[in-house]
């Protein structure tokens, strides 16, 4: 039997972002915008209206000068698995416009199905979803820079990070053509991972022990993917959303800022 006809192993694509390396430069945001045809407007300073799939937030430890510390935290879609694919947004979508793909673990967004009720935005604890209040408009000629692999979104629909799913599709096409069932680690990488000048983002299959992302975070799949690496954490871990984006930081205040802790509560020890 040809290898391509064999059953694919279930993947769980995920990301580990090293916050010790992240410089907050913003390259991941623009790499994402350029790859995914994200629109822009004259004024983008109202961040509730600004469409961005990847956003870099700035956190501070809240201490007074000179004990202040800051840390940047890039936030793509977390592609929550929840319990068996019941991610917060997928469970509430009345149009099946967003779905959990069991083969890759990627949460999709199908623009032509979405009718803009924005339940998913309300349900997402990470503010990873944005609504298109306007039709996108590109200055004359600039539409030539649009990427044909990603559809352009119309007014009235919700959009979000897709882990550059079109890159997965392209890589799979090539693999099928070459009669392979499996992708190499570097064949499918997201645009932000590729661009990050600090090399802070690692992307790959969390289920595959040979992939760097698995080795970095050491997810414990019998416990909802909780990381075994004590430096690793996930945003709002205690909500049980089982996100596939992990963060690494050597600073305790940063790890604590990733979730809601009561004052003086100790971090769980792994």
């Amino acid at each position, binding site marked *: 039997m040809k290898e391509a006809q064999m059953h694919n192993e279930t993947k769980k694509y995920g990301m580990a972002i090293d916050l010790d390396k992240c410089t907050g430069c913003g390259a991941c945001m623009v790499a994402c915008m350029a790859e995914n045809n994200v629109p822009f407007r004259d004024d983008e300073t109202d961040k509730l209206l600004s469409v961005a799939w990847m956003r870099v937030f700035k956190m501070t430890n809240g*201490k007074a000068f000179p004990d202040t510390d800051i840390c940047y935290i890039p936030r793509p879609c977390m592609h929550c698995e929840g319990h068996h694919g019941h991610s917060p947004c997928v469970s509430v979508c009345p149009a099946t416009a967003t779905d959990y793909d069991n083969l890759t673990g990627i949460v999709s967004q199908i623009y032509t199905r979405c009718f803009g009720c924005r339940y998913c935005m309300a349900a997402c604890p990470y503010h990873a979803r944005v609504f298109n209040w306007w039709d996108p408009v590109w200055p004359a000629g600039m539409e030539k820079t649009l990427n044909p692999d990603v559809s352009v979104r119309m007014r009235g629909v919700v959009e979000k990070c897709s882990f550059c799913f079109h890159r997965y599709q392209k890589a799979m096409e090539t693999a099928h053509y070459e009669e392979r069932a499996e992708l190499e680690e570097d064949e499918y990488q997201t645009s932000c991972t590729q661009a990050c000048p600090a090399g802070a983002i690692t992307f790959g299959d969390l289920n595959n022990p040979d992939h760097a992302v698995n080795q970095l975070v050491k997810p414990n799949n019998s416990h909802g993917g909780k990381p075994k690496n004590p430096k690793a954490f996930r945003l709002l871990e205690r909500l049980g959303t089982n996100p596939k984006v992990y963060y690494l930081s050597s600073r305790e205040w940063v790890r604590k800022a990733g979730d809601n802790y009561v004052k003086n509560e100790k971090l769980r020890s792994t």
Partner: protein
Amino acid sequence: MKIDRRCFLSLVIGGAAGTALTPLPWKMTDDSSIWSQNWPWTPVIAKGETFYESSACTLCPGGCGITVRMIEDRTVKIEGQTGHPVNDGGVCVLGLSGLQLLYNPNRVTSPMKRTGSRGSGRWEPISWDEAIGQVVGKLSELRENGQPQKVGCISGSPYGTVPELFKRLMTAYGSPNVMTVPSLQDSLQLTMKIMHGSDAMVGYDLENADFILSFGSGLIEGWGSPVRMFKANSGWKESGIETVQIEPRLSNTAAKSDQWIAIKPGTEAALAMGIMHVMINDGLYDSNFVEQHAGGFSGWKALVMEDYTPDKVTAITGVPAAMIQKLAKQFAGAARPLAICGRGQGDEPFALNETMAIHALNALVGNINQPGGVVAVPKPDYIDWPDAEMDDVAENGLAAQRIDGAGAGKYPLTSSLLNRLPDAESAYSLEALLVSNANPYYTMADARSFQKQIEKIPFVVSFSSYMDETAMHADFILPNHCYLERYEDVPVTAGMAQPLIGLARPIVEPLFDTMNVGDVIIRIAQEMGGSIAEAFPWESYEACLEETLGDKWETLNDEGFWVDEGFQVAAWEDAFTTESGKFEFGNASLNLFPGFNALAPEGDEASYPLILIPYDSMRLANNAVTNPPFVMKTIEDTVLKGNFGLVEVNPETAKSLGLSEGSVARLKTPKGESRVKIHLYHGIMPGVVAMPKGLGHRTKDRFTAGKGSNIKELMGPVEDQASGLDVAWGIRAKLTKA
């Protein structure tokens, strides 16, 4: 009719059941979603075969290699070039947005002649023949009057064939006034001249250093070659190399470093002197280097021991004496420690004795031309044209004093002093100015005074691809191709530890009626005739470039970059070409020694109780390039909100002024004032206000114009006595509730 309970219930239940059964609400929901998604214009993105073209990015001096993803004749995305010695696949936020500069609505689409008043934005498109004819006419007229020195030229960088063509044009024409935009490299190269005796650039072997002491350098905020710096920083994190950041504001670099030393603004060099005091006092220096390969140590040592005791330095810098001791021990104790200077992105020059102080710190540990140290890198030397023949007019013109006073009189060492345009003692004024690859009207420190000087020049020509501030205030615009449409060599000068050249190549056909500035210079020269035309024997710029690069041309065209594989760092025995043949800790005849200048910022403390300092951000281009839309999108709402720029103020300072987060305030300096919003930030020293560079454009670009304020218009000059460069690091300021 009496409504009883039964009647009411049947109405409600019946109504609800009726509504649920009719198709009306469902139809209305459906219709409203269809209506809300009506799209007047549906872009159908053409598919096609994908391929990749490599080129060099010219948007900053960093010299990264880029790979452009193409679909048929369309450019779709810029990515970092894998395997490039500078950025190896990485790319910065500005480089990624390059295609938006190609298709920018603010591009100049053909040669233009101004019809309204300067800055009014009224232009008339003209032909290239007419545009070049106008420039040739003006230049010929000045030459016929025997005043060729009255033509000035401003170039963004001093290196590469285009700046060299400008220099050659000016030489053959007869003007000494070739100026470049000031940068930290100016100060560093003067330092090399004095301490090494050589005409070299400064490179840093950052990847191999094992202790980094940064005197305010925004190592991950665009200092040097940004992507290379990000990679170096990640390398330091992986191998646990300690970095120390010294500056008054918790910048991204400070937050990423292991120690942040909050120092009083402008006093970084004093701390370096204090550290050296401890090292000398405790014998913590490389005595082999200092005794065998360096001169002038004992004389200068006395000055250090006398003036920079830890107590005195504490009084100047606010850094505790114990910390100075600790830093000295850490620095001297490391195997390959490296001290770096240049505030923020290093766009502004540093006082000469202060760069010398930081360099002396590296010399004390013998970390010159060593792995992990400071490396003297030869200036690009591949441009080897025969000297231009000069006629009598040219010789007379070249004999004139430079308009900016550089290279003679008080400033014999400095090669260009754009900030002193025109020198107060100059015997003449400029009648014509050519500006290429620079936007000095916006970027020059003390912008308002500089703008007044530009306004006085009757004939200003801009070669900008964009309608930037300088172009808006010019008389003629002869637009250059965008960097993705033209050939240009990019010698990498930003602190690389080996000589490297990149080649920008035309990836797409020119979109508009533009011309490579190199071709324009050659055509101007050829139309001028006589000895000027003879100095430019090339048919076109491309022919000139190919001939100049010689055997490197093929490599550059194939790979996009050329590295000097044979480059070897000079050993100490051969590295120094001072009179003594040794490294010099100072120069007695110039009375220049590593030290600290207490350069007070402009303004009196009573009227201006605060100090305003600029800061740099990767997300704000602040040189010749203006932020494209994608980069504007990444700016945080604590930096720009609507049209308000936000300034960072310590909550304690804000409280005493009655200001809170988001409140509108008037920021006043001796140079000007601006309406700003307040952002409370614990990471800024009380009494200091920080404002980002790169905002407040005054063009007609709808994505950037009128957003925030240009800090350069609020800053005044502080001149370095030794070099004449403007080394202002801040200005006194006042914040009042508006």
